[in-house]
């Protein structure tokens, strides 16, 4: 056992360990807790950096030990997992800073940060899982660790939201488990292998394999909020803003989408999925989700509810990109894991700032808010434009690649979906921008607080500005060799054996 065998485990253990320490910490030890939190996320970001460098140089990072008879617990860093790990740990750091500012003075912070770290550990585990059983383990851990965050406020209303969240996710977990066991009984292995490990199986198993696919994807689709399995996501918006930001823009929904990508690429293999005729129905479902959720977003007055439906719609871009089954669209889908995460977290941070500073929860209360909080609204505007897909922002790159890929793969109808969805995106984001920048404030804000010297406390202001900057940079420098796009191309080149 050398360093390379321990890094993946270490990455998962750090937040886990921090979680335990934070639970044990007294409520009023704010300094210690904040230091621990930030220290740990910086430390794992460093480790991720080392691994990122190593993976690109072809190093092999793997932790493995026996877990069940015939099955190992495997954490492995490959190019796909590194994409998700980097995203999660970078956003973990920013969200931690944000959450420290957001929760200042509110009760039960130990509990909050403890479960928050636990969620991060689970997300990193999901990202690094080297086989389906390890994936399942962390996937369920994520389900459970997110629950206390959703019910954090402790009211009857959030209890109901929590119940709905669990009904969906636990059922999804059961389907995933059933699919996993079924797959294991057919193949005797669950290891993720680039370009899949099922194509060599006898054709008599194909109908069973289709069943496995349906079970796995519908299990994962609950977290990825594919219509009609998306009902829990708007409900979970009852959680505090940092939770919505990290968990519902990044960790939880991404775990589902990432899992679908894994299943298609590293279990079934993209070409075998096409052979089984699985990708087209999935692409159609994703397209329906994109259009349906965008339409629903139009009619939400609650800012977070609108963002939630926007998330439902945007996550399906990832699935759409992958399900088109062409290398170019796949690059667009995979890179959207990063682009959507960074963009959506910006929007949620801003929504949190509005709620925390001015008490604004609804779009109809946002008149003239651009003047009161110009920086926040600037970040929000960049995020919104990124979502719509205005060049050269991150969202544009995604849509460009998916559109191009769809044409290449002969799925012209996808372009209609893309255009329709972009129009809908514009229709639900631009009015917000208009109201915020170009109308007069209507008297007092619902609940104004004076936080710090600037428009709001710096802890709340800096994270969205940084992520907004990333939205620009990821788009602007997409062609550089270390961009998310280049990395996605690197991943896809392995899957398609180009």
């Amino acid at each position, binding site marked *: 056992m050398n360093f390379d065998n321990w890094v993946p485990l270490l990455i998962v253990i750090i937040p886990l360990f921090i979680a335990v320490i934070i639970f044990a910490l007294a409520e009023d030890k704010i300094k210690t807790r904040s230091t621990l939190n930030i220290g740990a996320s910086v430390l794992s970001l460093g480790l991720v950096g080392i691994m990122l460098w190593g993976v690109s140089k072809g190093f092999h990072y793997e932790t493995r030990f026996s877990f*069940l*008879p015939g099955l190992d617990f495997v954490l492995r860093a490959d190019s796909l997992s590194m994409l998700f790990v980097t995203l999660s740990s970078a956003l973990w750091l920013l969200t931690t800073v944000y959450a420290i500012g957001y929760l200042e003075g509110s009760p*039960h912070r130990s509990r909050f940060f403890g479960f928050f770290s636990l969620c991060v550990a689970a997300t990193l585990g999901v990202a690094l899982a080297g086989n389906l059983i390890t994936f399942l383990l962390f996937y369920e851990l994520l389900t459970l660790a997110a629950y206390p965050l959703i019910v954090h406020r402790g*009211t009857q209303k959030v209890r109901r939201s929590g119940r709905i969240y669990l009904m969906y996710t*636990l059922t999804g977990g059961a389907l995933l*488990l059933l699919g996993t066991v079924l797959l294991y*009984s057919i193949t005797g292995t669950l290891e993720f292998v680039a370009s899949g490990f099922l194509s060599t199986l006898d054709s008599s198993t194909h109908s069973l394999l289709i069943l496995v696919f349906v079970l796995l994807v519908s299990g994962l689709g609950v977290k990825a909020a594919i219509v009609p399995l998306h009902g829990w996501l708007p409900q979970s918006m009852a959680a505090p803003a940092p939770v919505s930001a990290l968990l519902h823009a990044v960790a939880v929904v991404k775990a589902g989408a990432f899992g679908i990508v894994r299943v298609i690429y590293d279990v079934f293999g993209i070409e075998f999925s096409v052979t089984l005729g699985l990708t087209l129905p999935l692409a159609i479902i994703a397209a329906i989700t994109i259009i349906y959720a965008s339409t629903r977003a139009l009619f939400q007055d609650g800012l977070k509810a609108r963002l939630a439906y926007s998330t439902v719609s945007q996550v399906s871009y990832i699935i759409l990109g992958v399900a088109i089954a062409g290398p170019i669209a796949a690059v667009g889908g995979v890179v959207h894991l990063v682009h959507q995460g960074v963009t959506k977290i910006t929007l949620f941070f801003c929504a949190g700032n509005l709620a925390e500073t001015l008490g604004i929860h609804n779009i109809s209360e946002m008149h003239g808010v651009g003047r009161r909080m110009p920086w926040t609204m600037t970040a929000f505007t960049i995020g919104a434009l990124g979502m719509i897909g205005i060049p050269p922002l991150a969202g544009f790159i995604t849509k460009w690649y998916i559109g191009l890929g769809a044409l290449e793969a002969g799925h012209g109808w996808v372009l209609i979906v893309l255009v329709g969805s972009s129009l809908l995106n514009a229709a639900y984001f631009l009015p917000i921008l208009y109201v915020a920048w170009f109308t007069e404030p209507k008297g007092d804000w619902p609940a104004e607080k004076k936080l710090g010297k600037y428009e709001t406390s710096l802890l709340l202001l800096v994270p969205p500005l940084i992520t907004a900057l990333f939205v620009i940079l990821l788009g602007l420098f997409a062609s550089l060799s270390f961009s998310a796009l280049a990395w996605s191309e690197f991943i896809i080149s392995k899957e398609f054996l180009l």
Partner: protein
Amino acid sequence: MLIDSPHWISIIILLPILGAVASFLWRQHIVKIALTTATGTVISVGILSWQVISNGVQCYELGAWNAPLGIELYVDGLSVLMLLVTAVVGFAISIYASAYFEGNKSKHFWPLWLFLWSGLNALFVSSDIFNLFVTLEIIGLSAVALVALSGGAKAITAAMRYLLVSLLGSMLYLMGVALLYHSYGTVDMVLLSLRTEMNPAMWLIMGLMTVGLLLKTALFPLHFWLPAAHSSAPVPVSALLSALVVKASFYILWRLWIVVFPLDNDAQVGLGFILGVLGSLAIVWGGVKALQQTRLKLLIAYSTVMQIGYLFLAFPLASIMGWKAALYFILAHAIAKTAMFMVAGNILIHKGHDRIADLYSTVQHLPLTIVAFSLSGISLMGLPPSGGFVAKWLLLEAAIVSGQWWWGIVLLVGGLLTGAYVFKVLGYAFIQENSTNEPRPIGISKRMEWTALSMALFAIVLGFIAPFVLGIMDIGSPFTKGSL
């Protein structure tokens, strides 16, 4: 060498009995005596297990009389795991009880509990069906007395009903023993396994013994006595009953089914189907009833009804993997349920009640206890990583491999029902409300919180040591016919 001595098998039976007598005689030192005995028993079980793990199956003839006449004790992998889980649960409950009981109840609890422990150990090492009857009675009578310990009309009537049911079960079983002895001239399981054959008398024997043992194991619809008995007993006793006592009669049924009854694989699958259906009904019924409960202890008791159902899903599979899954269910459930009852005890003392709808703010006041509840809930739900997950995984796999996938669906439905009632409790515990019409919450001893948490953590750890535990199960291959 002391550690290689063959006498440890009898020591694990004798030591708790001596402790029971001593704690009865010297009441002023009762807790010290009891805890010393518990520690000693755990160490003895540990040594015996070590012998079995390193040297294989251990046999012992009491008083050096040979099999047909004397009493032979026999320890294989299955016995070792039952002994070990009894030791772990027993030790934790002893620690917990030393903080839970005060005054008079303590005086009665300790001798009865140590007596019960001795009975359990004796049961798990007996390979003679009459001796099993005696140990079953020791367990039954002390369990009834322990239920009655909390006093009050509810507990006493529950104990009374439990006693009648338990005696009826034993008598049905004993009738089977009498007929078996008459037909085959022995009560030794090994000899019986060589001699039994299918005939009308055998059907009668199988029917009598199975029904008798199912009654004691509380398989649906014979579970009617369990919720009242398990929920009205004092908390450490509830934990003992749910974790260990119902498993004792299950253990006997299991041994009979695999070894003694002349069932070939087809017959095991066919007859097992009936048990599997009853098990499924137990899962659904127990789960729904648990969800409807308004009291925490009753909820946990119905959860036991449900978890017993899981064990019977292994019967129609009739495969080694299925049996191993059932054994893992026993281990995981014993540990997790102990933790869960301890949680109920902590809440009961802290709040003065266990009404689920009024559990608000428990998260703030008893964080460790709620963590314990959540972790043990995870194991009961069968979510990874936990002992319950390993069991569920093995059983799912066994079901699919044998082509009987429908049991797998039952299993998943059970998991969801469990999730529903576990999170029902957690949901209320997370609510923050300041109520004035309630007595001020009472602080509870750290020892009780930490024992509950340790057991819950152990239920999670069981999810990581599966290769080791499953290895022990192979010693003496207890799940193969003619193995004993």
